[in-house]
């Protein structure tokens, strides 16, 4: 077949190249004369996963990036900047400090109206030392998507201003205090999708209850919040329709759980359903419209969760959570050990009270007899299909 692709307009060819990593799109310069300069009009700087193992490789890499920045069409904005950079801190000696160079690149793309930043710098030294986050990111008014992995957000001297930001994913980020993280969120008024994993704080100081009482991310529809190590005020995300939440009983005091009026889908992670069943019921009481529930039991290090022996025995809640009576259609329970009474009682309670339940799936790692116990338990919904998978 003839060379069809080269007859397409430049804009289309550049669009194809924009889905490739910059390394490959620059390499198309040798395809033919037609392709020689096309890469310069691609508004994306995607450096993908770049790991360097020695000084020379590092120098070749930064030489390449600077060439790209110099020769690309200067009038063109940079829509997307992605870099996952890994190196061993002792392999690159002074004066070449990668974070200085990377910070310059970030400043450059921020100036060129970048909309999407995905940045991960891995120093291979464990979590003790996290590189400093380039602060120009925090006042980039064109930014729509921000994904950060492994950074230290130092004291914010000027307010965070991210008026266009809709998606924020934070993984392994250190803030001085919880209040600094809240101030960060205040700077993202139109946020729709928030994900936090391993967000930690230098200082143990928790927020005073009143300070953030009325703060809410009103446009937020999806959130993924890790509450194990901190007391993130859940009120801030109470408008979401979909929530993934890692939580411990310890967090559930002083009005911590707010009512999630729009929540239809909940993925709840906690340690030991056996000790946390009361908290699960409490959460359900605060999700009146819940349609889909996924309960996950995770193994946590000691000290990260509280064992409350008072909760060893099941007690029927004083009233049935509204979501069970009216809305819950799907319920999944993973890592069901069923060894202790309360897990089984919780599952039975849901079956007994969820009037519109269609599907109940349980992944059972405990005794196989659990299946029979559940199958013969009273079920409120005539159309409910119960499946118990045995996962030894």
């Amino acid at each position: 077949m003839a060379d069809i692709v080269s007859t397409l307009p430049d804009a289309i060819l550049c669009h194809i190249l924009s889905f490739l990593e910059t390394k490959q799109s620059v390499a198309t310069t040798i395809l033919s004369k037609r392709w020689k300069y096309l890469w310069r009009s691609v508004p994306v700087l995607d450096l993908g996963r770049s790991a360097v193992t020695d000084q020379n490789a590092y120098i070749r890499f930064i030489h390449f990036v600077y060439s790209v920045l110099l020769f690309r069409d200067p009038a063109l904005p940079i829509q997307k900047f992605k870099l996952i950079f890994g190196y061993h801190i002792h392999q690159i000696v002074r004066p070449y400090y990668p974070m200085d160079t990377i910070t310059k690149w970030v400043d450059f793309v921020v100036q060129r109206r970048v909309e999407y930043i995905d940045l991960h710098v891995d120093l291979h030294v464990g979590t003790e030392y996290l590189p400093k986050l380039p602060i120009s990111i925090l006042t980039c008014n064109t930014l729509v998507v921000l994904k950060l992995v492994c950074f230290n957000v130092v004291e914010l001297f000027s307010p965070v201003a991210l008026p266009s930001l809709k998606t924020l994913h934070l993984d392994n980020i250190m803030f001085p205090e919880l209040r600094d993280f809240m101030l960060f969120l205040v700077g993202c008024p139109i946020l729709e999708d928030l994900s936090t994993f391993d967000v930690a704080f230098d200082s143990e100081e928790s927020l005073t209850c009143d300070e953030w009482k009325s703060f809410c991310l009103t446009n937020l529809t999806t959130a993924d919040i890790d509450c194990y190590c901190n007391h993130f005020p859940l009120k801030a995300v109470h408008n979401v329709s979909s929530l993934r939440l890692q939580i411990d009983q310890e967090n559930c005091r002083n009005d911590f759980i707010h009512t999630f009026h729009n929540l239809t889908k909940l993925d709840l992670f906690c340690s030991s359903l056996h000790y946390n069943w009361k908290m699960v019921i409490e959460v359900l009481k605060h999700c009146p419209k819940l349609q889909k529930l996924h309960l996950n039991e995770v193994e946590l290090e000691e000290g990260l969760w509280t064992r409350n022996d008072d909760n060893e025995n099941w007690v029927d809640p004083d009233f049935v959570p509204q979501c069970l009576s009216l809305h819950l259609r799907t319920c999944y329970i993973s890592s069901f050990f069923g060894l202790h009474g309360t897990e089984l009682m919780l599952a039975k309670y849901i079956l007994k009270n969820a009037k519109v339940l269609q599907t109940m799936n349980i992944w059972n790692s405990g005794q196989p007899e659990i299946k029979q116990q559940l199958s013969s338990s009273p079920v409120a919904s005539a159309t409910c299909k119960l499946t118990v998978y045995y996962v030894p």
Partner: protein
Amino acid sequence: MAEEKSQASSSKMLTLKASDGVLFEVELNIAKEMKTVQAYIDDCEDIETIPIPNVLGKHLAIVIEYIKKTNEEYDAEFEKQWNMDDLQLLLLAANYLNISGLQECLCKAIAKRIENKSPEYVRKVFNIENDHSPEEEAKLRKEYKWAFEGVDKD
């Protein structure tokens, strides 16, 4: 009155004639997704058969199907069915007919097929003739050295 009018326009049928003479009867609102066709209609209101001289019947059929069905799931499965030659011809068609959603889908699909492949492979798959002189190519390879490190030999 307004309701009647919209009902009438959505059920109005139009005929599209592909380059090999194959005829397709489509609803007006489907045809309008092709901005080129829309422009044609805007210019000549009474037209009933619109010629599409650059697109084969085979590809026009696929394009029409795409417009009718498109959603995220369909997009993901759509690109898997076609070989590289067809993808390129479909992109040409989508570009001519000016259908932005389909163009986007096809650009992504083509990029996926050449991802991480060597320039030699890309030349082969697109039938690109290398009109660089050996000196020029060597110069480019040196200038952007890092871009040519560690690529798939496939």
